């Protein structure tokens, strides 16, 4: 299993690329374990590695692969709302 430091970095990575919602200022940076596991699964499915929900070596390797800095999931509620508003205006 991943050591805590790896865990924090992975949570940061998942947030940066759209797999986890941005931290809620009301709840600080606390995420639920189920939410993180789900995010890891989506990331694994997207990246084409085995879906385990765990920070296994294959997943950590993929997270350290050089990549484009745009998020993979950009359908956050906030963005969708903005997009809908823009479409409505048009």
């Amino acid at each position, binding site marked *: 299993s991943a050591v805590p430091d790896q865990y924090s970095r992975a949570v940061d990575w998942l947030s940066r690329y759209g797999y986890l919602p941005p931290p809620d200022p009301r*709840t600080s940076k606390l995420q639920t*374990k189920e939410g993180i596991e789900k995010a890891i699964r989506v990331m694994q499915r*997207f*990246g084409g590695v085995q879906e385990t929900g765990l920070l296994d070596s294959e997943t950590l390797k993929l997270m350290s692969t050089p*990549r*484009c800095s745009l998020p*993979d999931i950009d359908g956050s509620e906030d963005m969708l709302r903005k997009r809908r508003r823009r479409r409505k205006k048009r």
Partner: protein
Amino acid sequence: YALSGLKWHKTDLTWSVHSYPSPSLSPGLPDNLVNSILTHAFKAWSDVAPLSFHQLPSDSRGAAAEGDIRVSFSRLYHDDGYPFDGQGGTLAHAFYPGMQEVAGDTHFDDHEIWSYGGGSINTDLFTVAVHEFGHALGLSHSSSDPSIMRPYYQGPVGDIPNFRLALDDRLAIQQLYGVKDGRPPGGDDPDLPRLPSPPPARPTQLSDPSFDDRCQGGFDAVANIRGEVFFFKGAYFWRIKQDGSLVSLNPAQIKNFWIGLPPGTNKIDAVYERKSDNKIIFFIGSQYWVFKDTVAMSGYPRPLSEWGMRTKSGVLVDKVEAAFVWAHNGKTYLFSGGEFWRFDESREGEQVTRQREEGYPRNTNLWAGVPSHIDDIISWVEGDAYFFKDNLYWVLKNGGLHQDVVTPKSIAVDWLRCPALPASPTAANPRNPKECKCDLSG
């Protein structure tokens, strides 16, 4: 494929280069070769969609003209809110089409060693440019394999003149701009990108009512963590914010929030936040865990015996009933079996040293006015000590140990937003239940 929902509403697009890779890092890429590689990267898209790209020349002073898609090689923070991170990590990004000034702009990390068909430590500019121009034209990341729009860099795509986009990428760009032979873009409704089907409706799941018993008291542990009070009961906890409001009336699952406790944890004996380094200590049975924020640190659990707590009769303590840091003196107090111990947990550099103080254990009846076997204790508001047992709590004023009268109050009403019960006789003195008490009405 995935579309961003944005596209250019024209098919003749211009591009310009505002900075080139540093020759010191990418010596094999003179400016004219960079122009040629970028031209070919655009061509990959214009080969399959009715798009044309024209590079705008530099003016007489060498400054690049504006254009729809402005390319630059930048380092770290470069004024767009998306800093690069040195060699490796993120390689490049591009802004989706639109009306904003940055729309279409494509930035490459100038800390990378850019090359052309390069070796293992170099990054192939052509491969990354085709990907980024896909974003600049309106495509999002794709999970398909093969697709140039996969987010991860997987080495050079091969010979530039012979490169052809994969089917997934061709369908994506043709959905936005149509196919090369002049058919209308996107079929019948060109401006509406296909959206995924909505997920099936899910009924709202109500929380298990058997755990919605916050008003009944009997908490396993109570802790003041970062100024919020956590009430633990079974496999659940309630959380009270600094302003006294409940985060939710419904309990949260311990295992979903505190990561690293054993599966099936359904009772926590005591919890406290260490004063010297703000780590959070959990006691369950004869073991303890140290948490950094919400994640258990590696190397835990460890045996409670490390704390060296022996009863007056010399028996090693195998369970902690309550734990707290008394704000009055900053010392850590652990309670078990009607006795308590005091610890000094000072910090020396990065290390916290735990020292059991002389003269302990002592009898809990020194804390006059509160029950002897409490559920847990916290320091709260101006350093007062709050003792919790069943559905009542007692407050010992800051520094006070022997207070004559400590009237218990309701945990449910004062902390957990439960309705007050009809008036009942004044609670008995826990040390002397038969003692007669008078109040103003009696």
